[in-house]
């Protein structure tokens, strides 16, 4: 039970801070793995330490980088476990306001985070930890020679966008509006991964997704950066949740995400610094 891990005692909080310090210290090191090991050693020597499960609800686009960070975290804090629920930010926000037990929420837009903060389900003020930029995913080799957002309006081209209700769709619409373009896609996909999948399966010729998604897809798609994407950069806010069953460990995880080490992992995945 995650509930049993909930021990709001000062000593633990102190331990959490200690662990944080240890983490930020080790993240300064270039060689990560031994540093993490030493960090776990140091927290192990500490009289009180983190334990239990941290449940993180995170936007689908964070999947690769957060999974890596979760492993790091568990290594640094033996006895802890990080479980993730990746999905459309809106779906996650709806589950949180619906009472889903979660410690941390990392959303792909301020708007979706607002769903949670409006219901006062957050314990800390959301902070932007990364930003994501849009990119066009095309078929490998870019056979349709897409270079600009405008190229997507070519007739006969099958383009998928995210639905306007999800952040990547809202961002794409913002970019299109800013450029005064009118684009009729074949589908408004339910989330960014679905949009990307359509290109990966070659059912669509192009999709407007996040840069991070293009990178995660490897050589199954080819990414095209377009200048208009600067007009629609998404802020990714993260916050501790009000009813967090394991608030101490959750805070430590948020700290890890915001630490230099965390930022490195995220930027490798294609995210921009906040």
């Amino acid at each position, binding site marked *: 039970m995650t509930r049993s891990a909930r021990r709001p005692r000062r000593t633990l909080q102190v331990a959490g801070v200690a662990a944080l310090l240890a983490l930020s210290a080790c993240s300064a090191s270039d060689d990560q793995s031994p540093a993490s090991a030493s960090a776990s050693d140091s927290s192990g020597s500490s009289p009180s330490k983190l334990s239990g499960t941290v449940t993180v609800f995170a936007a689908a686009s964070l999947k690769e980088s957060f999974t890596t960070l979760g492993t790091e975290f568990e290594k640094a804090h033996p006895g802890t476990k990080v479980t993730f629920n990746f999905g459309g930010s809106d779906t996650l926000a709806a589950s949180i306001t619906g009472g889903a037990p979660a410690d941390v929420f990392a959303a792909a837009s301020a708007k979706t985070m607002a769903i949670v903060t409006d219901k006062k389900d957050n314990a800390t003020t959301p902070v932007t930890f990364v930003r994501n930029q849009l990119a066009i995913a095309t078929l490998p080799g870019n056979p349709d020679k897409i270079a600009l957002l405008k190229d997507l309006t070519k007739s006969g081209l099958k383009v998928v966008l995210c639905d306007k209700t999800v952040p990547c769709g809202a961002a794409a619409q913002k970019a299109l509006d800013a450029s005064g373009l009118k684009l009729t896609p074949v*589908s408004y996909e339910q989330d960014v991964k679905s949009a990307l999948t359509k290109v990966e399966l070659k059912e669509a010729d192009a999709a407007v997704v996040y840069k991070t998604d293009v990178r995660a897809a490897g050589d199954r798609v080819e990414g095209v950066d377009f200048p208009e994407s600067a007009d629609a950069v998404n802020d990714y806010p993260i916050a501790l949740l009000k009813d967090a069953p394991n608030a101490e460990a959750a805070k430590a995880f948020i700290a890890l995400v915001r630490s230099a080490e965390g930022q490195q992992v995220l930027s490798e995945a294609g995210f921009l610094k906040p």
Partner: protein
Amino acid sequence: MPFALLLPALLGLAFLLLPLVALLVRAPWHSLPEQLTSPEVWQALRLSLVCATAATALSLVIGVPLAWLLARTDFPGRGLVRALVTLPLVLPPVVGGVALLLALGRNGVVGQWLDSWFGITLPFTTTGVILAETFVAMPFLVISVEGTLRAADPRYEEAATTLGASRFTAFRRVTLPLIAPGIAAGAVLAWARALGEFGATITFAGNFPGRTQTMPLAVYLALQSDPEAAIALSLVLLAVSIAVLAGLRDRWMTAS
């Protein structure tokens, strides 16, 4: 009435009805008129009804003969074929959608030939919605009709053949009318399943208002931004389903 039966029966009823009641209790009644007058809602509703009906019709055309094959003929591996027919029942619909993409998509095993020979592409089209719904709904029809066929006396078909009817004529003029109630029951099941289809549809046919956005898709996406609208949409879908199912039940199921 035995208490041991009555109690679980009432529990079962309550369990099924409670979510519906909750939907009604929490329904944003004030915004309902607004939802109901929105053209997008009607568009999605009409598309849902059209696609579910077309999927049911397609299921009838190819599903009833399939049920006949399973019930009335004997061939090696029939048990396996029957298991495969029911596979879409256990397959998560999203997986079904991906499988359909791999089969009938622009780059699919069969789809690439459809594209290069006939210029037919199925994903992102209304036809794609119908196919996705058929894939998920047809097993209900096949199972229902096969059960009815097994219960029907095959000697009526024999009697028809001794009167000069080919096996097809015997099937069409004797068996089909005899199993009509089973076919109707199966068709209603399939229709209901098709109407509520979400996963395979959004995966295979995508989501575009007026073309592939059926009510369940509209509900799901509304839930992302405006849960109240989603509840209102759900109520509309629910009301239409209940009206149609109740109407059909009276008209078809009792006429045997």
